[in-house]
Each structure stands twice: as C-alpha cells, then as structure tokens.
C-alpha cells in the first residue's frame, strides 16, 4: 500500500497541528518491549514513529543512542527482527506511519530489493539511512519508491543552499532538519536559527519539515513546533531506557509522560496562535 506519511501530514496540516515523532531503538533493552511501547506511544498522542535499527558503529549518534544500540545488539536484534516488529505492530495499528532509521550496512547485507520488499510488506512507510547521502543513493531511491517507501533525508545547519535543493528534489514523506551541529543528544538549541533554516528549506520544497536533535523537553518542543511541521524526540526518551533498563513498565511510564507533556505543549501552541 501507499506510504502513510503523506495522508498523515496532510491531515495534520489541515488541523494546523505539529507532528510529534518519537525515536526509540528497536530491541532496546529487550525485543519483546518494542511493540507494546509503540502502541503506548500512539496512545500518548504521537503521529509518526521512528524506529531505530541497531548498528554496531552508529557514527552520527551520541553516546545515549549508541548505548541503546549496544543493549539491543546484546540480544542480536537484527534488521530482519525490526521488520518483524513493524509487522506485529500493524496487526493492531494500520494507521500510524513508521519510519526505519539506521545505517546502511545492515541494509546493504540484506540487499536493497529484498529489504525494500520485506519492509513494505511489513508496513514500513519510510526509510532514513543516516550514512547514505543523495549522491550515493542513485538506484536505491528508485528501489524504495517502487516499493512505496519514502526516502527521508537529513539537512544540516552546514548544508549549502545548492545541496538543500538537491536533497529536497529526491526526498519524500518529509525532510528532517538536524537542528544542531553535533551528534544526537547534544545541547544548546537556538530556536530563531532553526526558524530561519526551516524557512530556507521551505523555499525548495512543499514537503513537511521535521526538526530533531536537541528536543529535550516540552518547552523546546513547543518552540520548535511553532516553526516546523514536526518535532522528533530521541535521546530524551532513550535516556529513560538506560535509566530503567531492568524495569520495562517504568520505561513505558516515563516515555509516555514525556510524550504526553510534549503533545499538550504542541497543541497549546496551536490554540494560542491559531495558525502556523
């Protein structure tokens, strides 16, 4: 079936709402936790789920998400397993878009055609391979598209206007603006700077613009949400997986609490301004 991303963002746009997108690493700390967590996050009001595929060498991530990968890999959570989790999730939820986010090598080993076919059949909607820039993605993008998978790409604070144009021309679903120089989970977000960049990106595309890296709490989420179409929250959630590794119930409770507060803050912003 077609990707769920476009209908999801169209509907949010009509309601003038900002998408809330959580990132968690699949299989962290145990594989059986992931699918119930996905359902709980949907109940807490998220719009899209970004599921991290564990990798041994996550170069673009900070220590929090690297450790999540390490925990998941202790029990050998593979790309194949992650696709299986999406399939399981779809037994109950056929509505919430799911994006796989990870590194290229596990996909390369599985084979691009085989991966795209299996992921699409399981109900995956988009794929963000962090270490695959558009220059190296020729051929891969077509395979994803042919299987109704949206190729999602990153744009960084250092991305030139020319590259922005190139990235926007091959992306679909949404584009993901990395709001900080640095790795995931870093500090010091400048919201006016983000707003300016999002405006610059919008000159190149009508695709929704999501913003991630550095969304730590409800206040920052609301600030960023006021100037973008989606906020992605990762490290702030994944920290809870580290803190309460031995207590899955506690992880779920904490994650739901963070997401609920962000949801409330994002929706309050809509009521306040009435428009975006």
């Amino acid at each position, binding site marked *: 079936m077609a990707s769920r991303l476009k209908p999801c963002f169209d509907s949010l746009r009509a309601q003038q709402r900002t998408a809330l997108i959580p990132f968690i690493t699949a299989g962290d700390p145990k594989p059986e936790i992931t699918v119930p967590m996905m359902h709980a996050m949907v109940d807490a009001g998220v719009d899209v789920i970004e599921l991290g595929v564990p990798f041994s060498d996550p170069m673009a991530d900070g220590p929090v998400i690297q450790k999540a990968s390490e925990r998941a890999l202790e029990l050998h959570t593979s790309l194949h397993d992650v696709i299986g989790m999406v399939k399981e999730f779809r037994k109950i939820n056929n509505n919430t878009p799911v994006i796989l986010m990870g590194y290229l090598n*596990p996909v*390369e080993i599985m084979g691009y055609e085989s991966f795209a076919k299996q992921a699409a059949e399981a109900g995956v909607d988009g794929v963000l391979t962090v270490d695959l820039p558009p220059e190296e993605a020729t051929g891969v993008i077509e395979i994803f598209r042919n299987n109704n998978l949206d190729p999602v790409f990153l744009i960084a604070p250092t991305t030139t206007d020319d590259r922005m144009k190139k990235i926007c021309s091959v992306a679909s679903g949404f584009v993901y603006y990395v709001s900080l120089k640095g790795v995931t989970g870093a500090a010091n977000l400048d919201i006016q700077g983000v707003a300016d960049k999002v405006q610059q990106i919008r000159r190149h595309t009508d695709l929704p613009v999501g913003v991630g890296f550095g969304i730590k709490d409800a206040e920052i989420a609301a600030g960023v949400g006021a100037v973008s179409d989606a906020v992605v929250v990762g490290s702030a959630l994944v920290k809870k997986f580290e803190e309460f590794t031995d207590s899955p119930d506690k992880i779920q409770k904490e994650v739901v609490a963070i997401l609920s507060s962000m949801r409330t803050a994002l929706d309050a912003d809509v009521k306040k301004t009435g428009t975006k």
Partner: protein
Amino acid sequence: MSQKPAFDFSHYDLPDTNGHFGPYGGLFVSETLMAALEELREAYEHYLKDPAFIKELDDTLAHYVGRPSPMYHAERWSRELGGAQIYLKREDLNHTGAHKINNTVGQALLARYMGKKRVIAETGAGQHGVASATVAARFGMECVVYMGAEDIQRQASNVFRMKLLGAKVVPVTSGSKTLKDALNEAMRDWVTNVDSTFYIIGTVAGPHPYPAMVRDFQAVIGREAKEQCMQQVGRLPDALVACVGGGSNAIGLFYPFLADKDVAIYGVEASGYGIESGKHAATLCAGKPGVLHGNRTYLIEDKDGQIIETHSISAGLDYPGVGPEHAWLKDTERATYVPISDDEALDAFHALTRIEGIIPALESSHALAYAKKLAPTMNKDQVIVVNLSGRGDKDIHTVAAREGITL
C-alpha cells in the same frame, strides 16, 4: 566478487571525482559531515597543486622526517632464504619510527593552510596518535587524540608520549573500546567542532577525499623506492610486499608501481590465530563488501551486517575494514592479498632482528613473513622490495608477554 572486472592500469587515475575506486570508496556519511568534507576536498585539490605548499611539505619531509628513507639490501637474510634478493624500504628510520608521519605532516600542513587551529586524530596502537601529536607540537596546534580504553591499557608508553607532546588523550569506552570506536568518536568531535577543527585520519580509509589524500601523502614511499631500485639494481623490482591493516603504508609503496604490470604486488593481512578461528583481521582475505566509516569496502562483519571485533598480535593491523583502493586492487587482481598469522609474524620478527640487526614493528613483520615464503620460490637475481613500515621498539612488551617473559 565472482568475476574479475576488466580494468586498464596503464593510465590509472582513480578515484573518480566522487571518490570511487570501481564500486568502492565514495562518501557514505551523515549530512552533518558533508560540508566539512567538501571544504577538505577543495583544499586538498587546491594545495596539492600549490608550489608553495609542495615546497614546504618537501622541506619538512627532508629535514624534519628525514627523507628519503634508505633502501637496504638484506643480504644475509636473502642468502639464508636462498632465493630472491630482499630489499627493505626503511620507513622505520623516519622521525617517530614509522611511515605514519609522512601523512600527518601533510595533513597538519594542510590544516595550517586552511586556517584550522585544532587537530584531532584516532589511534589504535598509538603510532598515528604519536605522529599526530608530534606534528601538532611542531606546528603549534591544539591536538586531541581519541583512543579506545582497551588500547590505552595496552599501549601505556605511547599514551605517555602523546601527553609529553602536549596532546590530550581521550579514552573511548563505547563499543569494543578499540580503534574503530575511536574513529567513531573522532568523527563525532569533528561534526561538533567542524569550524575550528581538522580531522587527521591515519589510514587510507574513511570518506572521500581521505583515501586518495592519505595515499598521495604516503606515495613518497613508492616514488623513492622506484628511484632507489633503479639506482641500486638498475631495474624495477619483481615484487612488492607490504602489510595491510587500513593499508596506508602498502598503498604508499604500491601506488607509483600500479602501471608497471611486470611488478607483482602482495598485500599481507593479519590472520591472527588463523582465519578459521574467527580471531583475525584479514579483511580482504576473509571479509565481504559493505559500508563502514564513510566508504564502501571489504569488512569483517556478521550475517546481519554488524561489525565484528578483530584480532591481531599487531595493534596496527587490528581493524575490521580496509582502504577502498585495496578492495579494487583485489577485485581487479592487480594486487594479491595473503594472510600471515601471529606466529608467522613473530617468527619473521626474530629472524630479521637476529640476522640483520633490525627490530621490525609487528605490523611490518607480517610483510617480512610473507617475503620469507616468497623469496625461496624466486631466482637469486630477482628482487623483492618489502616495506619495513615501522620499528619494533614499541612492540617488545607484546613480544615478551606472548613468549611468557617478564621484563
């Protein structure tokens, strides 16, 4: 790869403009690094054609590093082996004791021309870290070296050396706590401090332009070897032998000879306790293509595409990837890659020490061990050039420990 790709080496001009050697190499990094790599590529292409830069580089290589390094005819050892004549390219006689400095001098100079005041590096055994800290001291730059916590334990004297040189050594506790994790951590630093910082990669791996740039800085080895061979022997050698971890000393020797089709080329990988034991670092001999650390190349990985920990007695060869140009030389069969075990390397380590009075690095001992096998299969008037990439003083504790000797 099942079929050998046809390729003409007589006009070798790889990589292409995007950094590809056939299907290998390229630029597989997060968007957060693209601008920095583009800036680096432009600077590298510009300054390597700038006479002022080249002159300063050549002067530094001559008077600070001590180039040209000698080419030494290991006559006694050759006679004992009873075959080809073995010549050693003496990179062990460079300042800091290995080939690594050829590259760090080049990159630090480039950093200075680019106006960067801070350099960072990753290191496994500590050799590249020491070479980076050395040039940072020489050029008055701040230097941060990332090193796996495990490696810091194993290489205490190199850690102290770096500190003496004024570098800050940061322990990396993630993943396997070794070289690949140090590389990940250095990349993270670079992403965060990209405006002020130059990342000195120590080998011919990583995203474009590193594999080409590091090769170009190391190619001085092969250019000198070619000239010295012509002077001393009167013709080109019959075979080249060098050890391959990431592969920078090897490509440095091989590159100027790629178009000389009668020169056989052998890259020697570390098979540790044996490839069948699973404890090895023989990436080209036993790995398969994948994507890691910014380039497509051969990797040691599991069935799910996760990178596996490697083993070699030589820390400098203990890396799960390999330079993409070597991957291409393997597939096209321009070079042959062969495994040498820990024990074979140790045996050659002792042989060269006792017979020629040269203590070789354990890395280089792998190349020597293959030359020891190869020489007796060749005639006495044939010539093998072995890259003696580093000296072995740093390894005496490892050798002693392996042989149950307490110092």
